[in-house]
């Protein structure tokens, strides 16, 4: 049984704890033979780690022993019942829970040995064919020793015993670092044991932020960072446990429509699949509408789209964008689109991160919109919001999910364009929505600040919303400005009038020419007739001539005949 779930690394044999995140940061688990110390202040999850490891072992068909020096068997099982895997501890015949709290009420006179404890643990572990032994609240036992050196020696004894019998031992104990008047019974132990996990918790904005750190794991690679830790009904989670592997990012070549035809044109056909688009703007600049148009377009292509809103309820969004000709209800009904509303203040950043990951895992979207991503900055523990966001971007990138983030920028922000400026460096496309206030009007404008791998227009365009959808109006450069709103319409009508005038003028010109042609044609006709008449005249004339000539000949003949009557016949 003891070989199950163990891996060897440079001679150190590890045993998987069955807690995915913990096995990830420890690169395979905790020592298969020997003790791991879990220290932390009260209430930071030490006992839960022990219980969860045990429950995971039971699920894999291994056995385990849990001994508490602080709580009764019933208390422990009650605590465990708060978790999905809790009942397993109660029901399994391979789980031994020993009540060791009687030590607390005892009196002490001189030093004591723990050989009896080892004998009991061995008895129980053999009975359940156990691989894991958890001693919860070992400090309760050790602080009874007269001197801390005895306590340290006994931990060494426990550790050696576990190595010899190939048990994985988890020792949990309170770490009282702030209180110097009380001797810290775990101090020397920290130097002695090769594996130490430190749990801590701090209050940020009146919310508990849990932290996890591998303070020491001798002889093996591990993640040494202090990581955020969450506890939910699944037990402990380390949301940032999984390493980021950049090699797995799929290369993007395909363009995806944004749902706004003119925007696609500006972006050279749309955004790249798997890319990140940031849309930043002040309140009311239609960030949500752009996001809705994007998911509607994705669903329209038959893809799966997920819209996560931190601002509005799903039904509100569907109703609001419907007035702009964007239909979200149909793709929701067909299962292509899911709209999920979350409240930023409701959870820690890490909890949001975990929830978003769970949603992505479950729904497997092709396109994802987080509206607004800047809301994460409002949630508790916001100092790690950028970390959460970056990790989220890494997840969407590696999975080829096309992501659109919106970001609310403050009205008095001197740069005016993004509070998520950090994220804007990560984004492939950055679209800024603004109000242009001019001539007593407030007009929405859209400009593409950057778009990697795209020859995009640098011009600011006016964005108009109507029941027909979102339109980007033509750009009217006027000097150094771009005209919008009434100014644009005025300019547009001026241009229209000019065009009308030009059209009329041309029409007139055409008519004039046509008239000329008709006139000329008439002249040509007239000339033709004249020509024919002259020709006929000419013919008639030449005919007359012949008649005359013949008359003249006859006259000469008759004259000759008269002159020579005898010879007249000769001539004929």
């Amino acid at each position, binding site marked *: 049984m003891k070989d199950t779930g163990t891996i060897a690394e440079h001679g150190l044999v590890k045993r998987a704890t069955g807690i995915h995140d913990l096995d990830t940061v420890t690169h395979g688990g905790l020592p298969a033979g020997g003790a791991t110390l879990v220290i932390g202040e009260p209430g930071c999850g030490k006992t839960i780690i022990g219980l969860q490891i045990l429950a995971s072992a039971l699920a894999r068909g291994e056995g385990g022993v849990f*001994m508490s020096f602080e709580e009764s068997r019933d208390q422990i099982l009650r605590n465990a019942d708060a978790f999905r895997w809790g009942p397993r501890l109660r029901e399994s015949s391979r789980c031994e829970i*020993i*009540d*060791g709290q*009687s*030590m607390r*009420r*005892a*009196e*002490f*006179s*001189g*030093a*004591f*040995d*723990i*050989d*009896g*404890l080892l*004998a*009991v643990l*061995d*008895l*129980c572990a053999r009975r359940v064919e156990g691989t894991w032994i958890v001693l919860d609240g070992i400090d309760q*036992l050790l602080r*009874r020793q*007269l001197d801390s050196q005895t306590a340290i020696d006994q931990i060494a004894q426990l550790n050696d015993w576990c190595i010899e019998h190939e048990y994985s031992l988890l020792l949990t104990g309170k770490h009282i670092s702030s209180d110097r008047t009380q001797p810290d019974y775990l101090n020397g132990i920290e130097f002695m044991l090769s594996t130490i996990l430190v749990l801590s918790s701090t209050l940020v904005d009146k919310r508990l932020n849990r932290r996890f750190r591998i303070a020491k794991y001798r002889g093996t690679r591990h993640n040494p960072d202090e990581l955020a830790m969450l506890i939910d009904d699944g037990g402990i989670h380390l949301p940032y446990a999984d390493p980021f592997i950049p090699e797995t990012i799929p290369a993007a070549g395909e363009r995806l429509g944004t749902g706004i035809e003119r925007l696609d044109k500006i972006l050279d056909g749309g955004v790249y699949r798997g890319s990140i688009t940031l849309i930043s703007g002040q309140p009311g600049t239609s960030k949500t509408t752009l996001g809705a148009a994007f998911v509607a377009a994705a669903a329209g292509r038959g893809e799966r789209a997920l819209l996560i809103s931190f601002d509005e309820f799903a039904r509100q969004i569907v109703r609001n964008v419907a007035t702009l000709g964007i239909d979200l209800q149909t793709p929701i009904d067909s299962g292509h689109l899911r709209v999920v509303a979350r409240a930023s203040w409701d959870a820690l950043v890490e909890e949001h991160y975990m929830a978003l990951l769970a949603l992505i895992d479950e729904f497997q979207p092709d396109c994802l919109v987080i509206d607004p991503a800047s809301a994460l900055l409002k949630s508790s523990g916001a100092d790690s919001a950028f970390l959460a966001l970056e990790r989220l971007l890494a997840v969407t990138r590696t999975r080829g999910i096309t992501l659109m983030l919106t970001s609310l920028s403050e009205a008095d922000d001197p740069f005016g364009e993004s509070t998520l400026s950090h994220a804007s460096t990560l984004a492939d496309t950055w679209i800024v929505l603004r109000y242009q206030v001019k001539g007593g009007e407030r007009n929405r404008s859209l400009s593409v600040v950057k778009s990697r791998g795209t020859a995009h227009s640098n011009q600011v365009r006016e964005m108009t919303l109507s029941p027909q959808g979102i339109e980007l109006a033509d750009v009217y450069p006027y000097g150094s400005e771009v005209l919008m709103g009434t100014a644009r319409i005025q300019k547009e009508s001026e241009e229209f009038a000019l065009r009308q005038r030009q059209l009329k003028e041309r029409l007139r010109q055409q008519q004039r020419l046509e008239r000329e042609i008709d006139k000329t044609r008439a002249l040509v006709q007239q000339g033709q007739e004249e020509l024919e008449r002259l020709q006929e005249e000419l013919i008639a004339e030449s005919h007359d001539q012949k008649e005359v000539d013949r008359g003249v000949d006859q006259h000469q003949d008759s004259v000759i005949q008269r002159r020579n009557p005898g010879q007249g016949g000769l001539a004929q």
Partner: protein
Amino acid sequence: MNLTPADDAHPKRTSLILFVTGEAPRSRRAHHSLSAALDDSSLDIAPAREIDLLREPQQAIRFGIFATPALLRIDASGNRRVLYGDLSDERRLKDFLAAL
């Protein structure tokens, strides 16, 4: 705790059980300290029964005693007190035996 009234751990008068682990020095010291204290005392206490947890580890769970040496005192009404350690503090041991 896990005891029934018929149990041998629930006698008519005060009884003592000394938990030891084999021939461990502290266990032996406790044994001697206890014997000496009982010889000196005028208390009406039966000689201590000894349980070796290395031989009978299940007794540790039964009595809830995991460190040795440990002296368990059960009085006539079933109240239990435990004194851990090698019983080297004579005064402490006498107070414990006298239930002070």
